[in-house]
């Protein structure tokens, strides 16, 4: 690993007990990152783009039934299965813990899509089109992806870069939990989330609210989950992809078990 040069190690914590499924994060991400408009065909053809999506799972039977929501985005795996399979290094791991996608290198083999266990990589089957006037709204910091390449959540890397530029160069300080919070630097989805189900920060920053969760989950690995002091866990933990995302368990005092294995 080349972590030695890294100033930060970014991470996200998703509190499933806060998320209410409102989809504000979904639209916030689409607006920030120039995602193509999902027309009706995108849904009919199962090709809709949502770098962050809200999955809804049913549990139980009427009337003891639950609809459970979970936001799923790129997990920015330390052991990312998507990375080694790309023939052209279009997807690789950054020193700061981000899984980065290089649009201009991607040739569109879609192998990375197959090998991502979290189903968060999106292929541009068509060239994205906006009505001319709507193009005014596109974020100039984010490449508009052409047809034929793969795209995914970037942890809003453009916001992090702008933040570094502004905080570290102009202000002379460092990018930390406080400056993240006071600026508009948080990933778009995190900033939007009304319930604060999404938290973002630097795993190395003592002040960061996410650090305790990462420390806890890292300390008590997969065979010692029961020793964890927080509700933290990683998605598909047994695959050992080591995501830089941690989920906090949903609290459910009256679990419904029926129909779980539907």
């Amino acid at each position, binding site marked *: 690993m*080349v972590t030695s040069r890294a100033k930060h190690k970014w991470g996200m914590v998703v509190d*499933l*007990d806060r998320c209410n*499924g409102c*989809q*504000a994060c979904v*639209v*916030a991400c689409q*607006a920030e990152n120039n995602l193509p*408009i999902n027309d009706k065909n*995108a849904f*009919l053809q199962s090709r*809709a783009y949502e770098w962050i999506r809200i999955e809804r*799972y*049913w549990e139980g*039977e*009427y*009337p*003891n*039934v639950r*609809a*459970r929501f979970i936001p799923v985005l790129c997990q920015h795996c330390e052991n990312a299965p998507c990375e080694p399979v790309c023939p052209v*290094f279009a997807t*690789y791991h*950054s020193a700061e813990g981000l899984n980065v996608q290089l649009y*201009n290198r991607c040739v569109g083999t879609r192998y990375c899509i197959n090998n991502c266990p979290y189903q968060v990589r999106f292929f541009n089957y068509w060239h994205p089109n906006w*009505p001319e*006037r709507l*193009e*005014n*709204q*596109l974020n*100039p*910091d984010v490449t508009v992806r052409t047809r034929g390449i793969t795209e995914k959540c970037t942890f809003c890397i453009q916001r992090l*870069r702008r933040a*570094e*530029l502004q905080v570290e160069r102009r202000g002379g300080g460092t990018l930390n939990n406080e400056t993240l919070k006071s600026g*508009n630097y948080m990933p*778009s989805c995190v900033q*939007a989330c*009304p*319930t*604060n189900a999404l*938290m973002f920060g630097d795993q190395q920053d003592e002040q960061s*609210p996410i650090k305790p*969760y990462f420390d806890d989950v890292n300390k008590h690995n997969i065979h010692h989950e029961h020793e964890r*002091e*927080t*509700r933290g866990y990683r*998605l*598909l933990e*047994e695959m050992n992809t080591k995501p830089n995302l941690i989920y906090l*368990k*949903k*609290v*459910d*005092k009256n679990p419904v078990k029926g129909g*779980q*294995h*539907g």
Partner: protein
Amino acid sequence: MKLTRRNFLAWAGLSAVGAVACDVFQEEELSLQSPRDLPEDLVKGRDNWYATLGGQATGGEGVIVRVMEGRAKKVQGNPKYPVNRGKQSVRAEAGLQALYHPDRISGPLLRTGPRGSGQYRAIAWEPAALDILRRELNARRENMVLITEPLRGHLGMIAERFATAMGGQHLGFETLDQTTYRAAVKDVFDQDLLPDFDIANANFVLSFGADFLSTWGASTRLATAYGEFRQGAGRPERGTLVQVDPRFSMTAANADRWLPIKPGTEGYLALSLAQVIIEEGLQAPGVDVNALTDGQGAAALNAYRPEAIAPMLELPAQLHAGRTAAEYIRELARDFAGHRPAIALGGDSAGAHTNGRFNLQAVYALNYLVGSVGQPGGIRFNPSSPLRNLPAAAKVGSLQDWMDVADRLRSGRTRLALIHDADPVHGLPATVGFGGALNRDDLFIVSFSPFMDETTAMADLILPDRVFLEDWGDDIPEPGPGYQVLGMQQPVVNPLSDLDPRSFGDLLLSMAQEMGQESALPWPSVEAALREDVEALYNLNRGTSREVDSAGALWNLMLQQGGWWDERRTGQTPSPAGGLLNRIAAAAAPPDFSGRGEFYLLPFAHNSLLDGRNAHLPWMQAVPDPITTITWQTWVEVNADKAAEMNLREGDLVRIESDAGSITALVYPNPALPPNVAATPLGQGRRHGSAYATGGDARESSNVMDLLPAGARTESGGLAWAGHKVRLVATGESLKVSKFEGHFPAREIAITSGEEIIKTTTGEASTGGASGH
């Protein structure tokens, strides 16, 4: 070369060394340099963030807008704005697409074809368009009607004064109007403004019908509070949410318990809970039960004992397995009263029955029993406007008002209709016949909307307004955050050069002055009116005004932070009127359902389209509904088992038939819906306007309002939109549902705990660690 064992070994050794070397160099090789990594790659130029308001789509959120080189790039919550504190609803980004929408009306249009045909020709503002407006105002101003979206602040005041000065009437339009809720709040709390709920500090929230995590009330504000309610740092316990709702709404999906009650019986359940609380002495300390019941105590509500009420609620037996429904209600009452601070709130379908006002009265009265009126973790009340001339509540017409307007139009007494950003033709029940009422030759209609819609399509003259990101304005949020706030809206960009909109407010002001109404409307522009009142605010010398030392500085500060507020000027805490519970009990009446059919029809506001006002925005159309994940289409949710029984599958096109009309919708079998309920969202079924709203197959885009008979009203004259029974008739056709969910039932398939996606825990102790934010 001969391949001997010796040189075979040599070659093998060499390649091993090579492999090791490759591995060593790999580190370098993998340290790719991404153009994205390089700050230099960010485009040159500065971005500025301007504070303003989020417009109609958001229902009163404050936003900041990123502007680069004259173009708005991103809208997000204003961290300083008291209502939403830097957070935003799914609807917040809508403004950006409205701003750069390809289907904006670019300049004045004059009707050339028959009314409603959509045939217009472009004309110039000066002199043509304004001359026509002057002429018609002069000729027809008597009894004119000015129909707008619910307006507060200066624009609300200007609209009101303009209509009055012209000798007519101003009415705000809202599809699912809050008049019944407002009446119940008045009845129970004697308040004119809608309250705020301190859910963040509550331990128990009992919600009757109100889908407050999606669209009801200040939903973004309440969602933030909900996050704290669940996992806020330093809370004594995790809050419990119980949703009483015949529909499986987003709020029901997030509730710890969901009670699929018979529609319209919410008030009975609430009174029954009150009865148990009083009988068992569970009320909060210091609550004077005798005052609430005229000294009768539990006896006042004897008729509402759970044993008496349970049968009419029709709670499914599996819900209270192992005990009777009455015991279940008793336990709910004990839970509610035992986890103070507790809040009871209600709205949406609970208030949209012939007995809706009673239902909501009974629900809100519960707050007195648990002592949460005006208390932390309870209901907070909003103070009036900081400036006397500004309305804090929008003037919104009830169904009765709209019937009256339609009558006046039909009889020819009203000969001029001015319309701004409101679509009553789409949003009123078809039986009101508003479209027909507008379709008269002796009527002149002016629309100021920047987009075509059903009502604007009836207009003779269209004078497109600026959208809110291009215009001045202000807002007194309602429901407010519990203290005085005046939000400030500023133009963050200029209209694109190919567009020529004019500010509606400025136009009203100049017309009024030309008609000699300077005394009522003396300002040259909305901005001037704002500046004048900022001076008045400065002179109040409290709240934000104390942070600056001149009115000019206050103006600048308000532009920077998005408004003025005074956290110390809170609302008054009411005390209950004597015998409140007796009076509510006396007003009890079962709901009256119109129509024949097997299903209770429950329309609901769409999570992103709301009543349809966002239907022209592709982002809003493309947001999956949280429960069904459907986009772009109209669906009807039917209990999954019931659907199977009726041989209906997902995507089957059914006709929903009421006594007033019929529409078509796609079936979505929902595992969580009572078998006798059919739920359909508002928002689609637009026939005029942007292709994003109207471009689809007409069979899968319907307006549920077309099903509602205008006759069914609440006690306060509101539309009883949940009081109908309908039939579902298969058409035999089937369409593919454009939903985000895949093609297979989305149930977790995990067998081992390692495979689970959504892990749950029953414990609370395990919430340790930092909670963030």
